[in-house]
């Protein structure tokens, strides 16, 4: 308001500017974005919500939703949580260490550029390609691990494979936070007699904590939604929700139920919404300091 009052010393000039402006509100600029989000996010979510409360015959029912409480369906959500939890925790810790190491180098150094572009590629590395790469390099194909079965075990073996794309993602999202740590803070701490431990305990740690937790949540959401890798690897057993959604949609033995798929998908939407809300809150807090 004060800004307008100060610039509004020449009423005639203001009027003249208003006249030249097209008679549309500022919100029109957001139309493409709103349209995009509406078409590719809100509409599908709405369809899922709508269908989750129907049975295959098309009548309204709560029985689909109540299936979320059954022990079988719960086990898929537990499995999704375990896989996303383990792979995101391990990926976050290892990725953060790697990011810290990368940040120690010069900003335009060759190593940094190499790591960043490498991470950019590897963070998208998943699915059948990843499963195959693992199978071909570490897995049974080499013969060394032919009779070791740990890499098929759920959730630990699969988590190990997921870490292959979780670590690079962590490097990408966490590096800016580490870059935000000002060297002056470190110097100030040292000038006042603070040890390395005290610096991390009272300055670096608290500053990075929200960013770290936020990035971990992002990795968690990433682990929740990854699907193709586990499908190639665990073809005969369903452990996680996305696998079960797929079965509900393509079962040829009489267990086809699109509404059940919608119910499971709705459960996932709610989960991811909770996680991403946490992510948004944490990054907002982190952004306060790390500019």
């Amino acid at each position, binding site marked *: 308001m004060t800004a307008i009052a100060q610039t509004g010393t020449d009423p005639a000039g203001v009027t003249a500017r208003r006249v030249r402006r097209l008679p549309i509100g500022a919100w029109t600029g957001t139309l493409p974005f709103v349209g995009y989000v509406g078409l590719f996010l809100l509409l599908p979510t709405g369809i899922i919500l709508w269908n989750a409360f129907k049975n295959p015959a098309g009548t309204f029912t709560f029985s689909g939703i109540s299936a979320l409480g059954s022990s079988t369906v719960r086990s898929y959500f537990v499995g999704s949580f375990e896989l996303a939890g383990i792979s995101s925790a391990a990926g976050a810790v290892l990725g953060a260490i790697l990011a810290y190491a990368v940040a120690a180098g010069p900003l335009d150094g060759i190593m940094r550029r190499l790591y960043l572009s490498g991470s950019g590629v590897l963070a998208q590395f998943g699915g059948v390609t990843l499963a195959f790469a693992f199978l071909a390099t570490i897995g049974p194909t080499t013969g060394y691990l032919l009779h070791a079965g740990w890499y098929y075990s759920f959730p630990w073996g699969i988590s190990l494979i997921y870490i292959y794309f979780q670590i690079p993602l962590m490097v990408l999202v966490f590096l800016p936070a580490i870059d935000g740590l000002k060297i002056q803070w470190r110097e100030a701490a040292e000038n006042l007699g603070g040890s390395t431990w005290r610096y991390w305990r009272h300055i670096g740690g608290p500053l990075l904590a929200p960013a770290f937790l936020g990035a971990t949540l992002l990795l968690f959401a990433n682990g929740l939604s990854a699907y193709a890798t586990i499908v190639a690897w665990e073809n005969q057993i369903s452990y996680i929700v996305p696998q079960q959604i797929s079965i509900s949609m393509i079962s040829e033995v*009489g267990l086809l139920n699109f509404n059940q798929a919608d119910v499971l998908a709705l459960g996932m939407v709610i989960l991811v919404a909770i996680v991403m809300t946490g992510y948004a809150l944490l990054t907002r807090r982190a952004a306060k300091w790390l500019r």
Partner: protein
Amino acid sequence: MKFRQITVTGRGSRAALVMLSLLALAAAGCGSSSSSNSAGGTDWSTATSASSGGGLSKLIAAAKKEGTLNVIALPSNWANYGNIIKAFEAKYGIKINSIAPDDSSAQEITQIQQKNGTPLAADVLDVGLAVAYQYTSLFAPYEVSTWSDVPASQKQANGEWVEDYGGYMSVGYNSAKVGTITSLNQLLTAKFKNSVALNGNPTEANAALNGVMMASLALGGSAGSISTGVNFFSKLKKAGNFNPVQATPSTIKTGATPVVFNWDYLNTASVVGQSASTWKVFIPSNATLGGFYAQAINKSAPHPAAARLWEEFLFSQAADGGQNLWLHGGARPVEQTAMTSNGSIDKSAAAALPPVTGTPVFLTQSQATNAASFLAQNWAKAVS
């Protein structure tokens, strides 16, 4: 139909599919307008047999005029489908669009439900019986010329679907790695660490469900209850012998899955790409579990005459007809009994089939449904 016999899925094949679909669109766009009323005014989309439409030669002429046939979910290494498609194309000069070879039976239904009314819908389907029973209303009744040679228990009375080929559930294995298998309980021993795989998830794929059911029968269970088989796989998992990776010719080649439960026609040495001297097939004598797939014509097929000609071809008993071609792929054609008595069967191919002892068991509709619902509740718990 069938699950992932070929491993290549994902973006590459999707893109190819889109290209194929566009080609189909272009091809069909040229000729489809005249298709239904060609060759003497017969509307083939409602013809229930070749003779009711004016005879086989008229059917051939109408199909050639359509020029295209959309098939779906036919992997080229499944029951010799690769050669069957080539033989049909060569014989009639009709182009076949093979849509989504790795799709399941359920996805075939989804495809026609979504694409009906466009030239992209699949004309003919090859589906598991559970799907055939459930979606009979989407199929056009049609009796092929050899209709009477198909046993009555293996077809829908009006010909909405007809069982086409089948086989017996078997255990294929690399004898150079694991020795000779003579009983399923052997698979629980330490020698089979991480070795035993099914063809898919039994709550999803027909072949896998039958694999579990076969174990059930072999170990004293009955066709009415699959729990014995589920317990067996649970023990297999606890022993560390169950291998959950997607079994394919490549995992067999690398040695990751040296023991695979699958239909016998998918477990032959040539299909899995192994030498016949080391790749063996075992069918427990007390568990001869048979399973057939079924042919159906999409009621709204964009190429109704070509669809019917395809069925005539598949059920033909000629030396170069579908029945003998399936036999060459190790599958048992539905008209095998009739062909054996009338002498039209390829005797050397028939002799090469794995021998079957004991009384074959075929799951009834309710047995299959019960098994599926038991698996839905118990499979994941039992093996995880």
